[in-house]
């Protein structure tokens, strides 16, 4: 087990290196130049050329890459081309909102989604199943921004119950933090609840049709015991995989939700950086997120052993 974990951790470095090279090349080869954007619309070509020189963008690409790679190895992710702020500081400013939104969304989605999935599987073909299946289809079909605007209109503008937008750090108090996250969490949870409900329903139906479930029923096991002690545990591996991938997706940024609710998260940071061609930020975020993906996958793989003792590493 220990050697497996070490191997996986080492693979993280390889993945981050490949992502680094790929992102570096992609950014340099894409059209657009940060110097143009810094100088603004009314800048002369001479001004742009001066800024390019200052930023070191005229150096050969391999030289730029070596400079950047050496900085990364020494823990220096560089500074934003535009604001001059350290990239790590900018990312750390954005992590709290993103992690907060992710945790609340996952908590709500996992709780409600798994419950709906179990309920639908238990009552398969019945009224509840049909209603929940219809809800799941709706959750997938309606874009998050539509749900977001809908919630803003009714709960924030019409009822004045909740704030339209923004984020309050948790150190300003739990109340303001939570209140600002209710609408984005509801909007973002909608597709995740639908997704989890469908996955859980399918997995549960598969398990419920197994012979050992019929045996359990013949032995007089209660519905509760069958669903939660026998079926759910055996259906757990695919569910855990899906939840793990969702965590990684949420952490890497949910741009639309962050934009609609004006949450200063990682997703918006990287999209703004792409629009501005702020290379150090884009590179920094993508490298860290790629590392995070690998670590979350590792955590999910290890968690399999907890719910399924047959799995060994």
């Amino acid at each position: 087990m220990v050697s497996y974990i070490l191997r996986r951790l080492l693979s993280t470095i390889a993945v981050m290196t490949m992502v680094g090279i790929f992102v570096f090349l992609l950014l340099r080869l894409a059209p657009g130049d940060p110097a143009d954007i810094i100088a603004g619309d009314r800048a002369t070509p001479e001004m742009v050329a001066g800024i390019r020189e200052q930023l070191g963008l005229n150096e050969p690409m391999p030289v730029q890459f070596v400079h950047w790679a050496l900085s990364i190895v020494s823990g220096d992710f560089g500074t934003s081309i535009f604001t001059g702020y350290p990239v790590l500081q900018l990312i750390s400013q954005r992590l709290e909102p993103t992690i907060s939104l992710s945790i609340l969304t996952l908590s709500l989605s996992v709780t409600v989604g798994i419950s709906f999935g179990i309920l639908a599987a238990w009552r398969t073909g019945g009224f509840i199943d049909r209603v929940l299946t219809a809800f799941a289809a709706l959750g997938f079909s309606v874009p998050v921004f539509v749900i977001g605007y809908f919630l803003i209109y009714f709960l924030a503008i019409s009822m004045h119950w909740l704030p339209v937008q923004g984020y309050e750090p948790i150190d300003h108090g739990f109340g303001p933090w939570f209140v600002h996250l209710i609408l984005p969490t509801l909007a973002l949870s909608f597709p995740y609840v639908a997704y989890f409900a469908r996955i859980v329903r399918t997995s549960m139906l598969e398990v419920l049709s197994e012979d050992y479930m019929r045996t359990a029923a013949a032995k007089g096991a209660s519905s509760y015991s069958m669903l939660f002690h026998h079926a759910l545990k055996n259906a757990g591996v695919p569910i855990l995989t899906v939840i793990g991938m969702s965590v990684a997706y949420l952490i890497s940024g949910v741009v639309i939700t962050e934009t609609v609710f004006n949450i200063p998260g990682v997703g918006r940071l990287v999209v703004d950086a792409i629009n501005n061609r702020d290379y150090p930020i884009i590179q920094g975020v993508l490298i860290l997120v790629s590392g995070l993906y690998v670590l979350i996958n590792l955590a999910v793989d290890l968690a399999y052993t907890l719910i399924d003792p047959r799995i060994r590493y």
Partner: protein
Amino acid sequence: MTISRRDVIKIGMAAGAALSIPSVLRAQTTAAGARTVRMVKAADLRVFDPVVETSNVTIDHSLAIYDMLFSLDAKLTPQPQMVEKWGISEDKKTYTFELRDGLSWHDGTPVTAADCVASIRRWVQVPGGQLLMERAKDISRKDDKTFTIALKEPLGLLINLLATNSGQPLFMMREKDASRPATEQVTANIGSGPFRFNEALAKPGSSFTYDRSEKYVPRKEPSDGLAGGKIVKVDRVIWDNIGDTQTAFAALQAGEIDYVEQPPVDFYSTIENDSNLALQVLDKTGWVLCMRMNCLQKPFDNVKARQAMLHLIDQEAFLRVAVPDPRYGQTVTSLFGNGTPYSNDENTGWFKKGGDPEKAKQLLKESGYSGEKVVILQPTTIAWINDAAQLLAATLRKVGVNAELAPSDWGGLAARRANKGTVENGGWSIFITSDSGYGLTDPFGEVFLSANGDKGWYGWPKNDEYEALRAKWADVETLDERKALAREMQKIWWDFVGDVYLGQTLRPIARRKTLSGMIEMPGGFIPMWDMEKA
């Protein structure tokens, strides 16, 4: 079913709790207090240094934290701001400036003449100060409060140059900041202006906070445009970067923010129907929508082809795309825009309501146009330009031009427009942009109004006769003389067609009615002093 007394009590308590939730939540989401103003700017502040970046948001940031030697009043006349006294030698070649008392940087150190000299020396390295660079013999400090600018020859425009907000305005910075090269950003954000930049609360891409500078000593004169006493009437101003305009508008309606700089045009009627909100045009000179043609490459290297574009354009059609509400759009025929001191009607006979496609076809034929590809850069991230580019392509195709759209984001456009080559080699033929009407009052500083070929701005029009007139602008001293010169320049411009205007728009800001005292000023700059919140 029977209902017990206990059930009634339980139901009552539950209902009470449910009804109290909204008020609890509302209390937690109350908008900022009366001493804090929350604003959503038209663009995110990305670059702090006004010498490096020329955007309005950077200038607004600089107006807040820095101060200027001279400032323009509402009539665009320069007035002393940091300067107490100034004089000019008899031969008009030496200017002496004395700083007023009470000026200090936000780090507590006093503003000295050495700071001003360093700031001017840095500024003359960029186009905004280029004219002074050419004319200055010496810029030096005399004592802690006095400095001089010695010229090789008289420069009638000098005080205007020091006061202008067009292009790259001259803001005073600390000597140690201003000693940096002009291409290297100053990010210290320590000025001597009426607001202090709150570094601790700065969240780039999300919000910036400006606090009233307790140490700032305003001038005694009443506020007038950007001149006079800059009296700050709030404690704090926060710029929220809300990327989604729908969300920004909803936040304005809900009272979470006080001001939206550029509300989408389709929200105008909703704003006007909301008793808590108001639209206000702060900049009466607005923005001139402009089409730049690549004068170095076919077909627009031929003046007849450019004249064809001038005759072809139906400005009203483009205005409908850019600003559907006719109250905020108008046709424009003067090179210097509508409503500026230099607006005039010289050589504007080309204008025809609805455009003149037949004349355009004839001119294209005379130009020898033979179906060369015309590439229109289309920035899909900027809605009005994206739409206008499509309309332009359709308009060109109607007169037989082989128009092709090249979609990209603005960053892609900005990179491609620097390519002077043919369209086959990654070049371009046309892109659409806009310039402030106020900027057009400064032919010397405004890059759009240059015609110095490949040394100039994108499109690179060239006309030596026009440039000779533009060079005179610096030495003309009176307004009437400048007006006469403007007519001569315009006459030539519309003959060689340096660019083509698509209309002029006004961009009202949206604010809650509790916010008042916004300064009306040409240029679209938003100073934050005088502003009050009830």
